[in-house]
């Protein structure tokens, strides 16, 4: 009996990136299947954010290829990849500070609904955009803060807003770059619950230092050190891998 051919949402082949003599991505290959949550962990400087930046198009790889749903996107600019269903959050919060939370999300909805080369009407009173934006805000429990300027949100709320922006894009693949960074334990718990709820709806790549979050959420874990994948597999297998223990996990898990 033939097994069903897995159809990865993201496929990375032998990706390399060097800045001069410094190799930050050293031949990484990995894939993420539909509905799968693939966590990427590794010590600081392992090249996790560099990897996400290459997948989302902010950095050009030196070699290798990136496929989104089978389409080669290696040379596409970030906006084209977004149009193909790729959304991301940033390690350092990246929102529009002088726009309200609602407008931050509404802009993401607008990007997917019709032309933005329209010069009449008030964008901020388009109910179709605002309703969809409100729905995304509700999913991250930010609906009561919709009219607050993003600059005035708390750090945890900004992290949630990043997530809402990504959700509003109705992505096929969501890249999360340390969504828990800088949040307190309570807010982390809240974000884990939100992510658990979202799991399965689309493929996700989660880069995170919070091991509670990683082991609670991940279907597969890849361990990155010095730009290379040290180990990859189910959480239990990765946890038991002796190389991983010495390189990274040991100290954090004990």
């Amino acid at each position, binding site marked *: 009996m033939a097994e069903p051919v897995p159809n990865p949402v993201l496929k990375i082949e032998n990706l390399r990136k060097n800045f001069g003599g410094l190799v930050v991505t050293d031949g990484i290959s990995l894939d993420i299947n539909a509905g799968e949550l693939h966590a990427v962990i590794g010590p600081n400087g392992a090249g996790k954010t560099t990897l996400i930046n290459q997948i*989302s*198009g*902010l950095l050009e790889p030196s070699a290798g290829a990136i496929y989104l749903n089978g389409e080669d996107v290696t040379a596409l*600019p*970030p*906006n084209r990849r*977004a*149009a193909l269903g790729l*959304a*991301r959050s*940033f390690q350092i919060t*990246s*929102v*529009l*500070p*002088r*726009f*309200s939370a609602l*407008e931050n999300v509404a*802009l*993401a909805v*607008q*990007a*997917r609904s019709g*032309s*933005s*080369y*329209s*010069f*009449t*009407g*008030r*964008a*901020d009173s*388009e109910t179709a955009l605002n309703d969809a934006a409100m729905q995304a805000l509700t999913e991250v429990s930010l609906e009561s803060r919709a009219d607050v*300027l993003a*600059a005035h949100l708390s750090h945890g709320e900004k992290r949630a807003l990043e997530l809402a*922006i990504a959700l509003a*894009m109705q992505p096929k693949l969501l890249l999360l770059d340390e969504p828990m960074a800088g949040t307190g334990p309570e807010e982390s718990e809240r974000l884990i619950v939100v992510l658990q709820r979202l799991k399965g709806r689309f493929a996700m790549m989660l880069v995170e230092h919070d091991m509670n979050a990683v082991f609670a959420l991940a279907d597969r874990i890849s361990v990155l050190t010095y730009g290379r994948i040290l180990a990859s597999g189910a959480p239990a297998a990765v946890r038991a891998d002796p190389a991983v223990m010495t390189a990274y996990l040991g100290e954090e898990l004990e």
Partner: protein
Amino acid sequence: MSLSVTAAPRAYKFEAVPIAIFLVLALAPVAASFGAESYLLGLFTRVMIYGIAALALDLLCGYGGLVSFGHAAFVGIGAYSVAILGSHGITDMTVTLPVALIVSAVFAFLTGTVCLRTKSVYFIMITLAFGQMIYFVAGSLSPYGGDDGLTVSLRSTLFGFPVFENDRALYYGVLLFLLASYLLCRAIVYSRFGRVFRGARENPTRMATIGYDVFRYQRVAYVIAGAIGGLSGFLLANATEFVSPAYMSWQRSGELIIMVLFGGLGTLHGAIVGAAAFLLLEDLLSGVTENWKLIFGPMLVLIVLFARGGLLGLGQSIKERFSRG
């Protein structure tokens, strides 16, 4: 900080101000008829013409964060379109106006394609460079007066009718164009397009990763602002009946930036107030002393230091200063 002077145009807080501005401009000729009419009409016509150019610059600077230091180039292109066509006997605005708009839009498209690849100080410098380039081109147009400039022998006609012949008619024509430019810029700011353009100033990387080709939106805005600059030049040539390379010198571009800052960045009608304040002060102070810039300079410094929102924001910032203690 300056977060209170937000680009998010949710509330129509200063709605009364633009209405008042246009009422004053509409009634000014009536008041002027009581004395020194032609002088005052001429002055206010210039105010409105520079107001149009400053308005377009405010769209770029105040909403897009694109500080263009070469905006006078578009004014010059619009003015030269009228003068050069006029020297060949073409004076009807059904031809001269579209030519002025199209040539300045094309110049904006070509230079914008280069300029908008750069950011911040580099953007300022490269727009300045293009502005100076067109300034020297105009100076070398020997068939059209070279450095000495060129006289516009006949104001633009409309289907052969000399609609701009009378100074008062020209005044109201300019007022109509100012109103149209203002309404257009306002519509743009609130529209879907404007929201993307404003978002691109806040965080271009975020805008790109949610799916916007930031560069193309900025270029469209740059072309619109360039065309409005061309309109301003078209009117300027008609008002002064003369054009010269000085119209597009970097000093003129700097003056446009000063007007925008003076009135209040990112408000649109502030640009009109700024143009009025600049030209009226210039007129007033230069009557007092030849070195009027000695007085004007410190005034500008004070405005920039103590009223981030320009003249319009002055009242607001005084209030904030006291409430914060």
